[in-house]
């Protein structure tokens, strides 16, 4: 299987080994074309104009919502378009949890959260005197489910915020079990799916999750747009968040009434064309199908793991049984930033640093890690090129 022809970046850089999809994925032509087409011939503001072009744009925007919702197993009236995962989590923290949080209350997060799923909750704790309780993971990078269940026994737990797939370790968390444990205790749960939704099927209705968030740009879609799924019964018991146009029914200087459902959380002109691109990215993934996507990425992951295992100076960090194609590693004597710079010289793009997960990287005892992440655009040659480039790193640092 080779999907490289779908990605025009390879026309510009035929020898590029792009191994940083976990940071942001490259874009297939179909997504770029759909967005260009929208700008060229269908564009107007939505939900406003009484002319045909605006009507068409509104239909396209709402159809995009339907596509993304269906892709995630949601109904369209449960799906809010936001600027991305970070914005979604901040929204849930401030509009849902803040009003019900008191000093001494607890919010459960895991060791392997991205900063985006730590800092909004930390901020709430600053605001209210609540505290973050951290569920640890083991040395393989797997969540301690027993500790999680135990922590949920506290009646002070008011929210769980867990990552579906770790952006550093690639660990796929047993999110269905985590959700049912939280539900059994009546605790609302938010799942950060930023690293999941491009790599495996997710059905929020089946999961029974309260909030599920993801970003289009890690799913071969555009930057600046993400999806926030809100279980239907929560829409009414959330405060408004950002306010302004589009989210109101009626405005006067002494009284404002708000929209209900997704528009309540979509103040201002939305990222209309982003939504079109997001929907096209979902269609792109659907057209290939999960069986093919997962087989492709797991085959590359096995090939990569096999290649790395032959080097005694490389240690892979994160060896969970269930993983997506994300591999972080350290190399003896060479700092990750030096590795990334030298690899870049060989047209191999990897990420190096703390990966916006300082508490996790620190837990494994390293100041920084190098990370390889795989996507549909990768082929075995990319990994061969990486291995050759790593040899060059060794030579330079010999």
């Amino acid at each position, binding site marked *: 299987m080779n999907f490289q022809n779908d990605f025009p970046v390879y026309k510009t850089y035929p020898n590029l080994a792009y191994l940083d999809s976990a940071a942001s994925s490259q874009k297939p032509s179909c997504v770029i074309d759909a967005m260009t087409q929208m700008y060229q011939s269908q564009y107007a503001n939505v939900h406003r104009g009484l002319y045909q072009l605006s009507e068409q744009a509104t239909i396209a925007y709402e159809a995009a919502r339907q596509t993304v919702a269906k892709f995630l197993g949601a109904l369209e009236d449960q799906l809010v378009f936001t600027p991305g995962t970070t914005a979604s989590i901040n929204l849930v923290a401030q509009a849902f949890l803040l009003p019900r949080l008191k000093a001494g209350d607890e919010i459960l997060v895991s060791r392997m959260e991205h900063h985006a799923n730590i800092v909004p909750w930390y901020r709430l704790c600053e605001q209210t005197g609540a505290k973050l309780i951290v569920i640890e993971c083991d040395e393989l990078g797997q969540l301690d489910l027993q500790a999680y269940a135990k922590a949920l026994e506290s009646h002070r737990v008011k929210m769980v915020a867990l990552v579906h797939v770790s952006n550093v370790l690639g660990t796929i968390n047993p999110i269905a079990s985590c959700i049912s444990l939280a539900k059994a205790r009546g605790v609302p749960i938010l799942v950060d799916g930023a690293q999941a939704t491009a790599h495996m099927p997710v059905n929020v209705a089946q999961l029974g999750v309260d909030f599920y968030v993801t970003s289009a740009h890690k799913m071969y879609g555009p930057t600046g747009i993400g999806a926030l799924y809100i279980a239907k019964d929560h829409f009414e018991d959330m405060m408004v968040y950002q306010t302004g146009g589009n989210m109101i029914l009626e405005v006067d200087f002494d009284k404002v009434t708000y929209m209900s459902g997704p528009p309540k959380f979509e103040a201002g002109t939305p990222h209309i064309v982003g939504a079109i691109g997001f929907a096209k990215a979902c269609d792109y993934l659907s057209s290939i199908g999960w069986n093919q996507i997962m087989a492709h990425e797991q085959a590359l992951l096995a090939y990569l793991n096999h290649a790395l295992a032959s080097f005694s100076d490389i240690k892979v960090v994160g060896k969970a049984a269930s993983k997506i194609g994300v591999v972080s590693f350290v190399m003896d*004597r*060479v*700092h*990750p*930033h*030096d590795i990334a*710079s*030298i690899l870049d*010289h060989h047209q191999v793009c990897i990420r190096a*640093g*703390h990966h916006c997960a300082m508490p996790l990287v620190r837990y494994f005892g390293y*100041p*920084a890690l190098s990370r390889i992440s795989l996507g549909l655009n990768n082929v075995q040659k990319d990994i061969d090129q990486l291995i050759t480039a790593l040899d060059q790193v060794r030579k*330079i*640092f010999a």
Partner: protein
Amino acid sequence: MKGLYQDLIIDHGTKPRRKGIIENPSAKERGHNPLCGDQIEVFLEIDPDGVVKRIRFEGEGCAISIASASLMAEAVEGRPAEEVQALFENVHGMLSGKGHDDLGKLEALSGISQYPMRVKCATLSWHTLMAALKKMGPVSTEGV
């Protein structure tokens, strides 16, 4: 790539000179680049004549930041503290791709100006050194 990782950089980056601490230093300062995680601590012993008698550093980071600290320590030790500012400005000029006077061994760092994202790795130790000197206040040979 050779421009960035010259032999001297690899040498000093993997086998840094003057690494360690000074007990009761005349001045010390910490530097930190939180985004990349590099950190460094610079210790100075200034003699009554205002000369940097000893300089040591501790820290962790990439080869560029460690090599820069090591080469800096070599260049600064034995120099009057008041000359360090001019040296700093000269190095800064080199790292930011501006004109500079010949810097001898420190020229090994010159290739870094071609890699804007790595310049901050090389400047961390220098800024830390300057902050240490500043904190110490004006160097004086009176009152001893």
